[in-house]
């Protein structure tokens, strides 16, 4: 049980936790938060993979670390868009829920 494996398990648990949050929490904001948890769990796995691939004096394999940085910025952009959407929906309807008003009368063009 070395350091990378420990953080690997931590990443796996974070992913499971985030997925639980994504499925269960009704408010969209909490879902966005849960999505960020899952994202950070996956990036932690990238970090673990990088750490396991450490060689030639580098702290870890630089390629997954580069992917993590790109991933974090993508996740942030997604969060920003999602939050903007939730706020706009809240301003428009006074409530930000995902359940459609009534499932049978969906929107029209």
């Amino acid at each position, binding site marked *: 049980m070395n350091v990378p494996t420990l953080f690997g398990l931590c*990443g796996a648990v974070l992913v499971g936790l985030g997925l639980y949050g994504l499925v269960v929490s009704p*408010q969209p904001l*909490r879902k966005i938060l849960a999505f960020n948890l899952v994202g950070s769990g996956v990036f932690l796995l990238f970090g673990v993979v990088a750490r396991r691939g450490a060689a030639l004096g580098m702290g870890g394999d630089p390629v997954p670390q580069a992917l993590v940085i790109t991933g974090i910025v993508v996740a942030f952009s997604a969060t920003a868009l999602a939050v903007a959407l939730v*706020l706009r929906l809240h301003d428009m309807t006074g409530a930000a829920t995902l359940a459609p008003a009534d499932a049978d009368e969906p929107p029209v063009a």
Partner: protein
Amino acid sequence: MNLALLFDGMLVVLILAVAVWTVTVRDSFAAGIGYAVYGLLLALAWVRLAAVDAALTEAAIGGGLTSVLMIRATVRLRAGEAAARAATPGPLPRLLAALLGGSVAAGLALVVLALPDPAPTLAPQVAEHIATTGLGNAVTAVLLSFRAIDTLLEAVVLIYALIAVWTLTPDRFWGGRPGPKYETDPNGMLAYLARLLPPIGIVVAVYVLWVGADLPGGKFQAGTLLAAMWLLAIMAGLTEAPPISRRWLRGVLVAGTVVFLAIGFAGVPLAGAFLAYPEGFAKPLIVAIEAASMLSIAFTLALLVLGPPERRDQA
């Protein structure tokens, strides 16, 4: 060595505890705060995994800007909180969801344990070719030379996100200024901080950018710092967010990507391939790209946090 393992173990337990609290707490505002703490703890974990670049990014973007977004949003949505919470699914679906999440986590854990022991790595290949980029920091070399297209697409992602956020503008406010109008007591505490901190922030940001070539750092981290400083000044009411229809603002937003593309295409005649750097000129070109990108990223991130325009442009 098991002392370090003990510390890591405590850190992991702390991270998981904060994460569980963030998911299960009833009040969304508390969850936002919880996520900020979680982000900073995660930055510690990245340091323990010897990925300081990632730690910087996680602390700046994950812990910092994302938490700002979440806290601002949860405050604005506090009114509908109780109603929304009523729609929480009953115990059975929650149990089922926990079961599903748990089994995915267990599967992942098994796979992580079963990863091949001599872990395959590209570190030797990077070490072998890093000389051509003239950079000391391997991660920046990967980001800007070996996998340059990822970083180019990364900058484009930010612009797409900004376009998408601006699409949500109400028609009457198009061309207006993003975010609400912040008025605070001009000689209050926040204004004082907003006058004192930005200069330091800018110096640190430029330092982080410059050092990124050889030591952990880089344009994303520097850009985030600049964005934070600008947001602080805006929230303290010292300056105002620019109207989105200004031509100069659009120019700054696309500057980083344009420079990146220009240098990339310049590589075709000079270095034989798109996104290749001519012999010996790699480092100055990369630093030029990083500088231009830092500005664009700073403006884009700040505007993403401020959201779509919410008021007309009383110039």
